[in-house]
Every structure is written in structure tokens, then in C-alpha cells.
């Protein structure tokens, strides 16, 4: 090691700042700020998830109310058609077609609710992801 290298090494070793109480206090304030922000973020995250869950539940309830009975009716008609097809050969049931049209109408009516529920789900997921980040 040359004289200069030794000089450089010792010069670097000499510099060590003395402890400063003000510095520690500033850091602890910074840490407290971070913790407060984290608490707010967590609260927002929980609120977002709860809102999404409530909106989804409401959406599902509305959808079920709007065409749940139709769905059951169609399912029943389809079951009957299948049973009929098995027992009496290829005769298309007009009743099943009518039930299908009814379902489409119900779907149109329930579309708003579906969109609302999907929007709430996506919004909740985005809020959750943003809070995680």
C-alpha cells in the first residue's frame, strides 16, 4: 500500500459524524408519518373491500330477484325438453323457445345490475391492489 493509499484510507476512516439528537428526532417523525399513512391506507383498503363486497351482494341479490325465477323456469323447461327428447325422439319444444326468449328479456333487464356488480367487483379489486402497492 502506497503512502497515498494509506493517507486516503485514514482520511476516510476519520470522518464519522457525531450523533445528533435532532437527526434522530427527524427520523422518528418521518417514521411516525409513514405509520400514520399506512394506517390510513389500511383503513381505505378495508373500506374498499367492504364496499365492493356489499355492492356485489346487492348486485347478486338484484340479479337473482330480476330473473332468478326465469332461470329456474328455463332450467325446468330444458330438463323437461331433454326428458321429452329422450323419451319421444326428435321433436323441438316450442315451450323451450318461449322460455329462452323470456330469459333474454330478463337478461336485458338485469344487465344494469350485472354491470353494476361487475363494476363494483373490479373497482374493489383495483382499490385493493392499489392499497397493496
Amino acid at each position, binding site marked *: 500500500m502506497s503512502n497515498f493509499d494509506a493517507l486516503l484510507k485514514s482520511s476516510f476512516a476519520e470522518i464519522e459524524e457525531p450523533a*445528533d439528537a435532532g437527526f434522530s428526532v427527524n427520523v422518528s417523525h*418521518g*417514521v411516525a408519518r409513514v405509520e400514520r399513512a399506512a394506517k390510513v391506507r389500511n383503513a381505505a383498503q378495508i373500506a374498499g373491500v367492504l364496499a365492493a363486497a356489499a355492492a356485489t351482494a346487492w348486485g347478486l341479490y338484484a340479479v337473482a330477484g330480476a330473473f332468478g325465477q326465469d332461470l329456474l323456469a328455463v332450467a325446468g323447461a330444458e330438463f323437461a325438453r331433454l326428458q321429452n327428447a329422450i323419451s319421444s325422439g326428435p321433436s323441438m319444444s316450442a315451450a323451450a323457445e318461449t322460455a329462452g326468449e323470456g330469459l333474454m328479456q330478463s337478461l336485458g333487464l338485469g344487465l344494469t345490475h350485472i354491470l353494476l356488480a361487475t363494476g363494483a367487483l373490479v373497482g374493489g379489486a383495483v382499490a385493493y391492489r392499489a392499497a397493496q402497492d
Partner: protein
Amino acid sequence: MASRGLLNLAQATEAALIIAAQAKDQAAFGELVKRRQGWARSLLRRMCQSHAEADDLAQEAFVKAWERLRDLETPAAFPGWFRRIAVTTFLMAKRRQKAVFEEIDDASPIASEDSTPEAAAGAKIDLEKALARLSDAERLCVTLNHGEGLSHAEIVEITGLPLGTVKSHVLRGTEKLRRLLEPAT
């Protein structure tokens, strides 16, 4: 942790403080800051030209360390881990100021070389003043190489600069320091 006395905190090993801080014990982290601030501030003061800026960056680095402390796998790795955070904080601040670290100017003189009384008189000056006359990139690489004992490869890893650039900054920075620090002949 709330019942722990100040005496215990002061007597705790650094590893114990880090483990407690990882469990969100702010008092333990405060003690860790108290113990490590001298090193952290001097590291950043060597890299920055202004003491106030260095202290601001050191505070920012400690707050970042608090946020990421759970990522630290072993307490023994704390110095290297924190050094990386400090250097990243410094680089981000400099990049916000549009500082360029990748370019090497072969003709770059020592800043204010001819305008200072010490230089004019050929007097030996102290390290801090000498470092202040290097470019940001040279100061960073020289500090990490000579001050922190990192190899060129380690500096590449920590700064993201190309190896050739790091070698050049260290070489040129060291040469400038030699001219500034060695007594005039």
C-alpha cells in the same frame, strides 16, 4: 416492548434492535438510528456537496429502511443493505436534479481547481474539501471504493453503472484526490 426500559434498549445488540424494529418497534428503530446515524450521515456527506442535503438524504434513507425492514433477511446484512438504500436514495435525488453519472468527460478538471486559495498555494486540504471538488459520479465511486471498501463489481451492482464507467470514475477521482491531498512538492 412498551415495558422495556431505556437501559435495556441502550444495552441491546444491533441484531436484537433490528429484529425488534422488524416487529414494528419504533423505539428499537430509534436506537438503531442513534447508533448508525454517524456512519450513514458521513457516508452521504462524502457523496453530497452540501451537509444539509446529505442529512436530508440520510433521513430519507432511514425512513425507507423502516418501510422495507421486513425485507432484510439477517440482521448481520444490515450495513450492506442500508448502504444500498442510501446510495439509491442519493442516485434518485441526483437524477431528479438531472445529474449524469454515466458520462465520462476526459477533460473534466478538478472543480474550481484554480480558483481556491489552497489550490493556488499548493496547500494540502482535507478529504471533505477535496471530495467536494470531484464530480458527483467520481465522488460516489471514490467514496464507495475507498471509503466503504467496495470492489468495482460491488459498485456496479449497487449503482447500476457500467463497469468501465465505474473503473474510470474511481481512477480519475483517486488521481484528483492525490493531487489535492498529497503535500505539494
